[in-house]
């Protein structure tokens, strides 16, 4: 799925933590509002398209990308960052239509995660842009 994105450059911890500090208030508020109710699931068409796989749930994607960065204050490994990149680029198209009963701006959280990852030189590589067509399994 993600052929050659595993660069082994070291993390730039200073800039990572700086960005996290800068967005701390916004992240804390949004993450704290998540009651873990999972009602956002159906609003994601990818969740529906992929046989209700929980890893397409909007809350899952936020909690396991930005949420993890926030909780661990940026102390994450390169591999973990790449997993997050998979979540926020491959499992999300940022269509902006997720529903949260508590008003969490999920797309904003995903795009913040993308921003942080880009700052670490980890950008989502879409499979097809490398010329390897990915045929989706029909649901």
């Amino acid at each position, binding site marked *: 799925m993600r052929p050659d994105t595993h660069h082994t450059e070291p993390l730039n911890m200073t800039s990572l933590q700086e960005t996290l500090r800068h967005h701390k208030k916004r992240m804390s508020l949004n993450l704290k509002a998540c009651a873990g109710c999972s009602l956002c699931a159906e609003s994601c068409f990818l969740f529906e398209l992929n046989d209700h796989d929980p890893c397409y749930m909007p809350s899952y994607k936020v909690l396991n990308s930005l949420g993890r960065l926030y909780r661990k204050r940026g102390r994450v490994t390169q591999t973990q960052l790449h997993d997050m990149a998979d979540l926020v680029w491959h499992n999300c198209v940022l269509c*902006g239509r997720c529903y949260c009963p508590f008003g969490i701006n999920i797309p904003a959280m995903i795009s913040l995660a993308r921003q942080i990852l880009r700052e670490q030189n980890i950008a989502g590589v879409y499979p097809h842009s490398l010329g390897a067509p990915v045929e*989706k399994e*029909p649901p």
Partner: protein
Amino acid sequence: MIKALTKPLEEIREMIAPYSRVLTIGCGGCVSLCLAGGQKEARGLNIKLSASKAPRSDAIFDDITIERQCEQQFLAALDTRVGNYDALISLACGAGVQFLAERFPNTPVFPGVNTQFVGVTRDIGWYEERCKTCGDCVLGLTAGICPVTMCSKSLFNGPCGGPQDGHCEVDPDTPCAWIAIFERLQAQGRLESITAIHPARDWQNQIPGRILVEEYRTRYIEDGETS
């Protein structure tokens, strides 16, 4: 991105009247963002078609939303499904509808939205046109305000004699693009870019556009024809 508007329900009903098994296909791209053709709209359309006096009481309506309809790899997700239906409604932009119809040439495809323009999100549910995709961008000369799109007469050497109170004579709610261009350039101290005459341009609308990215040319151009 591309902004679209859902077609009037009546029009959709008329189009699908002869068919009894209809699949509505949403698109997770641009039309999702502008609340016209995402999963919610696809599902909503089904609910509306089923609930309203459908042309045929035995009709079956289903929906599915895929990542984007303007790429064949995502359309592949539909391959095993489409056979079960005798008509498709695509909620994608005009480009997506055509690509879908191309992939499933034996099934009638109907558009569920009217593609409006390339535009911006001023706020949720409020979209504005910004680009006519004319293919030869002059925004650098016009202070980042498009004369082709934002001027009702698409003047390159505006403003015309019509603006009133800073607004376009055609519509009092639309600011005059050329006044805005003038004011912004004046503030930036580079009026010279519009005091010079902008010559007549070549409109790049002669054939349907095609782009071959340089790195990929050799991949698609047949042997011996590479330039």
